[in-house]
């Protein structure tokens, strides 16, 4: 039996892609799921039904992670409903790729605010609860782009590299309180973000991946549930690439 059974996880950006796969995998392993979504109520409603089929409880909350008060409300509503929360997966993220000389300040700001401030806001909102209960697990979604940098992604790479630094500092800060903080860095994964690329571009991308295929959201989700489980009880401050060898 999974040791995630009966625990509660908050997953931001949970209605699509890697976030959705995380919701389903945590639910499959018996965790109650709270997920946030930005726009699509219909997608969120459908996912709630899917999650509940695993026999767990689920809340979906429309949330703008750029706003601290909304993030704080997510944690409070989770505690009101489930009385507890042990796991936070900061997954919400956007990209607005463009060569730097073409990039508008607004495009820089949007990406940094959603990806980096979003991670800060949600973590800050949950950390006091984790510190008080002396138990908690935080998983932050970064990217290989945050490790090696990718062309056209100065904003995205900066935000994702920021998440790695944030996570390492926090891991040291809260380790004594039984809280683990780890980072997952997906490479090219079959999601809306990559799926919308032209076929010829996808072929070019695959040339860079030693395993010669795109990853699946489920493969990333399995790393997240592993990190949240007791199997990873001695792991903190770690950065795990799930990229088919892209950043070797």
């Amino acid at each position, binding site marked *: 039996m999974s040791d995630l059974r009966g625990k509660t996880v908050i997953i931001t950006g949970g209605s699509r892609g890697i976030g959705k796969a995380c919701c389903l995998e945590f639910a499959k392993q018996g965790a109650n799921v709270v997920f946030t979504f930005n726009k699509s109520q219909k997608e969120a409603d459908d996912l709630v039904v899917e999650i509940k089929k695993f026999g767990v409880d689920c809340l979906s909350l429309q949330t703008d992670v750029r706003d601290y008060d909304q993030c704080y409300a997510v944690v409070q509503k989770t505690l009101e409903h489930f009385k507890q929360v042990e796991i936070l997966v900061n997954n919400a993220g956007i990209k607005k790729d463009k060569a730097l000389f073409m990039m508008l300040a607004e495009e820089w700001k949007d990406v940094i605010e959603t990806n980096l401030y979003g991670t800060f806001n949600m973590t800050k909102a949950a950390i*006091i609860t984790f*510190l*008080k209960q002396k138990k908690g697990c935080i998983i932050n979604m970064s990217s290989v782009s945050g490790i090696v940098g990718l062309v056209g992604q100065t904003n995205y790479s900066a935000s994702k590299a920021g998440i790695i630094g944030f996570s390492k500092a926090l891991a040291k800060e809260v380790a*004594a*309180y039984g809280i683990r903080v780890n980072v997952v860095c997906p490479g090219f994964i079959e999601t809306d973000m990559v799926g919308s690329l032209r076929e010829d571009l996808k072929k070019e991308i695959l040339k860079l991946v030693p395993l010669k295929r795109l990853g699946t959201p489920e493969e990333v989700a399995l790393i997240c549930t592993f990190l949240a489980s007791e199997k990873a009880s001695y792991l903190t401050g770690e950065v795990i690439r799930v990229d088919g060898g892209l950043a070797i």
Partner: protein
Amino acid sequence: MPEVSNLGDYRSEIKKLVADIAEKSPEEIKDDATFGEDLGIDSMMALEIVASIEKKYKIIIPENEIPNIRSLQNVYDLVAKLAMK
């Protein structure tokens, strides 16, 4: 939630609790001692004090009050205020 009149000698209890976390004896700690400069209590230790007090007095200290807890007197006032609610 306890009434303030039923809190007993809550000041001494809180002082002892703070002294334990600061690894000092209660006699060494004055009521107006500041956590940071006088007692060397950092923000994480302050949170430990908050968690211990919540548990002991069965109260919830709102998160927005936590940054304002800078001295023993602040804690006394806060506990009294929350217990009277």
